[in-house]
């Protein structure tokens, strides 16, 4: 039989499928019914995954300055570029990986970055995108978070689904939500827009004002925790969120009465980590008060989001070396002189403009990948790497299970497997050797990644696949250093300004620090995606020499924008409230916050924002 079992290379649902080669050069993907999250279902991307194999966008030959070159030349040029960057210190170079790398490839990247280049700056875009949600979940659940198998969604009697667009972000999860709703589970959709799709299946559709989801979820936790009606302050917050009191009470009683509660969302959909924390909190509360089961199903962005982090593709955060995170590397503010991007079109995350700006700052950009992209276009050297279907490996799916990824065809054109490319680069660098074959890499993974010690690699064959689910404790290392609030830098008017979200734990439930909460609510009140603006304290406004309605240039590590000013006395002077366009700021708050012993408050590292008059 020409059908090899494998895992879909797109989203974090991790659908099992078969890949078959047709007429020598074409791939065809077919769902698996028995070994799959989806029990036979795939989304459009999955059904079309086979076409990656013949895609016209494949990189086939090495390039130097966009001109085709031989492998020898390209490796020499790449190695020369890397050396000249490293001459300025190992902190000058960063390595940024995609979330589609196999475990073996990701591990090879880690060896290359840590052992050969010795840079602390290693990260994956997938980690950065998921980090906010994952931090929120892990902080509440106090355990490295893994979603239960998606099929379990169908056993719930109440499903709380965040955003109908899980239909696009995590289609397989949405499929189960639809199935469950069809079979009688009560579906609650919480969304900023009306989406017909899940909408007409929903027993309750909570439409809130854009940006108010955090507030709404916070109130929900309060209501479910206390089993009570909202007080006056909360009532007015609810009103500001644009949610009817009646609908809110329906929502809280549905959650309160649920016997089997499922909370479903895609990790990329959340705006701030607190939202994930509240959702986890809901399940904890229900589990503690009589529900048979209450679970969070959070699907990650990329097919191997979990595995890539497991393999150690994350910034080094111990000792004196503080590695930069993905967005910090891309911001251009981390002082990097050189960047190696592995299999990720990073323009998706920062936009083409920012990418071009970054390119100007970098002395050297190396792109190793399977497909052409704006990132490849800007690179000094492009090394074409074997893609999905061209080399074997493994993925770690959303529930932590490890699955085989098959090879059905040899790498097209002059593409080479990533491990081999990295070995060639190491060789050229200082004569070192890195493992290139899958079995050596796997043996080394078992030795070095504690939770993969027991993985039965031999059992991970594409002809006889079976998942291994390793036990996992403390395998995620995403601890950030966090500056306590009193160490914030003193701020001048045109200097740095922090954006903060302060979270305080009290009486078993979560609340924003009241002053920030006020600012937050005010900000979201007026902030929609069409007419963003920045809210500052009237005094700051005066000091800046501007007025309400005039514009200021707001700059953060995640981009700058000219925005109209609104003044609100409720906003503290050391706070700048940024619009949704700066959501990356929120996403970047990935680390665990430090808890202040005295007050019980938890703080994030503030993100600096500078305000300047335009021109």
């Amino acid at each position: 039989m020409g059908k090899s079992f494998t895992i879909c290379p797109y989203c974090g649902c991790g659908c099992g499928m078969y890949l078959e080669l047709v007429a020598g050069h074409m791939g065809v993907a077919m769902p698996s019914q028995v070994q799959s999250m989806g029990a036979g279902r795939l989304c459009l991307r999955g059904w079309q995954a086979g076409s990656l194999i013949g895609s016209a966008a494949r990189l086939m030959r090495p390039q130097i300055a966009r001109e085709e070159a031989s492998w020898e030349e390209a490796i020499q040029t790449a190695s020369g570029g890397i050396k000249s960057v490293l001459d300025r210190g190992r902190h000058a170079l960063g390595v940024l990986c995609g979330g589609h790398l196999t475990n073996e490839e990701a591990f090879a990247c880690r060896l290359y970055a840590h052992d050969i280049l010795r840079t602390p700056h290693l990260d994956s875009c997938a980690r950065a995108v998921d980090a906010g949600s994952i931090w929120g979940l892990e902080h509440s659940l106090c355990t490295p978070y893994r979603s239960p198998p998606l099929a379990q969604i169908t056993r719930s009697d109440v499903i709380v689904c965040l955003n109908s667009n899980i239909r696009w972000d995590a289609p397989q999860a949405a499929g189960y939500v639809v199935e469950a709703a069809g079979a009688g589970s009560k579906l609650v959709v919480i969304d900023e827009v009306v989406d017909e799709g899940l909408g007409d299946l929903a027993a309750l559709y909570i439409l809130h004002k854009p940006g108010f989801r955090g507030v709404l979820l916070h109130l929900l936790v309060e209501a479910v925790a206390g089993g009570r009606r909202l007080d006056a302050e909360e009532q007015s917050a609810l009103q500001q969120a644009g949610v009817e009191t009646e609908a809110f009470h329906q929502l809280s009683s549905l959650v309160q009465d649920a016997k089997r509660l499922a909370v479903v969302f895609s990790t990329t959909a959340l705006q701030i980590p607190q939202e994930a924390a509240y959702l986890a909190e809901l399940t904890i509360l229900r589990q503690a008060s009589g529900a048979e089961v209450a679970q969070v199903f959070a699907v990650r962005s990329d097919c191997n989001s979990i595995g890539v982090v497991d393999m150690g593709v994350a910034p080094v955060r111990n000792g004196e070396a503080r590695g930069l995170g993905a967005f910090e590397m891309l911001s251009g503010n981390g002082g990097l002189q050189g960047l190696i991007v592995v299999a990720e079109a990073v323009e998706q995350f920062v936009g083409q403009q920012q990418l071009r700006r970054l390119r100007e700052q970098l002395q050297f950009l190396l792109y190793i990948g399977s497909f052409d992209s704006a990132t490849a276009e800007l690179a000094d050297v492009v090394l074409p790497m074997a893609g999905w279907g061209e080399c074997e490996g493994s993925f770690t799916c959303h529930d932590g299970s490890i699955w085989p990824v098959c090879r059905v065809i040899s790498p097209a054109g002059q593409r080479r497997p990533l491990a081999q490319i990295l070995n060639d680069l190491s060789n050229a660098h200082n004569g070192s050797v890195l493992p290139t074959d899958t079995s050596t890499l796997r043996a080394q993974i078992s030795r070095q990644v504690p939770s993969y010690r027991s993985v039965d690699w031999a059992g991970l064959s594409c002809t006889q696949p079976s998942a291994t689910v390793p036990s996992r404790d403390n395998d995620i290392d995403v601890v950030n250093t966090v500056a306590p609030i009193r160490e914030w830098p003193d701020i001048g008017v045109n200097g740095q300004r922090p954006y903060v979200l302060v979270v305080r734990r009290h009486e078993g439930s979560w609340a924003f620090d009241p002053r920030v909460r006020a600012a937050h609510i005010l900000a979201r009140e007026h902030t929609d995606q069409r007419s963003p603006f920045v809210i500052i304290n009237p005094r700051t406004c005066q000091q800046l020499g501007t007025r309400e309605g005039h514009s200021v240039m707001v700059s953060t590590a995640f981009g700058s924008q000219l925005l109209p000013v609104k003044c609100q006395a409720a906003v503290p002077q050391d706070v700048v409230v940024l619009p949704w366009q700066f959501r990356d700021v929120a996403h970047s708050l990935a680390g665990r916050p430090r808890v202040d012993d005295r007050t019980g408050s938890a703080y994030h590292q503030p993100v600096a924002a500078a305000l300047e008059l335009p021109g």
Partner: protein
Amino acid sequence: MPPLATYSLPADKLEEVADRLLTCADRVIGPVRTPPGDLFFDVVRSVNEIELQYGNSLLPPTTALFPMAEEIFSVVGGTPPVIRAPRSDASCLLFGIRPCDVAAIQRLDHFFLDGEFKDDLYAARRSRTAIVAVACSQKADARCFCSCCDTGPFAKTGYDLQLSLVDDTYLVEVGTEQGRRLAQRLSDLLGVADDDLILERERRAQELFTELEQKGNMPSAIRRITGEAVSQAVWERIGGRCMGCGGCSFVCPVCSCFYVIDQTLPDGTVQRIRAQDSCRLAGYTREASGHNPRALPSQRAARYSYHKLSYRYIEREGTQGCVGCGRCVTVCLGGVHMPAVTEMIRREA
């Protein structure tokens, strides 16, 4: 159409029949399991790979005639270019397919082979393919509904040979001259089919037919779709739930749409490829100017149902576009597969 001939076959001789048939064609395609346990119609190498007690395969056996993807031709050289059509002269025997899939092949035959133009790729495969069907003696799959489409539990035509199990004997029906030649290869295993055997098969099939669900959704959907009596609201509801995966078309044994693309191989050869397509996908009708006559999911949902169930198409293609195999029920991400749609249409009436 009555069979050309009928025989009996002791049930325990089935394996020998299969074994004999393995030598009757270059490739025998039958129901076989992958190691993880999924059932596909794929090349059979030895008899013990064949599994006849299967819930319907997710992909239909029609992929042996109209594959998920195939080469139309390749072009080499440039001055002037030379076109090479793929050669496909291997014979093929489809073993163990169900009556609903036999009905689907009949509709595909009509669509691809009759009329002004014929599809050469399908024709080349079909002319060298023999069909040995196995009738259903019990409901094959929790999701199938041949009784609503009049395609089962046994095939009335369209097979070369058909085997129907009655207790410990198979009734063997010969449908075509090709089937007769196959039966000759088995003559030493076949006995006479007496009238009792034929009548008993008939009786049991009738029993099974009435036992299977008769919701009547299908005829009412056909009437209402043909009469354009389905409200916009229903199409919008269906379209709203559809997640546009295309799965319902890719697994449907009746669906025949394809798209065509050129791919350039590393050595410069250009391969023109066709691959199955779905009218549920937004890009299906989108033109280069950006204009899309079926831009809304509701319009695409209506199109899918119209093609399958409108009487105007039944007139054109001879049979309706759903044979009741139930595959779309398994793959649909949005829960708006054929039985759900006919139900929604009827509920509105």
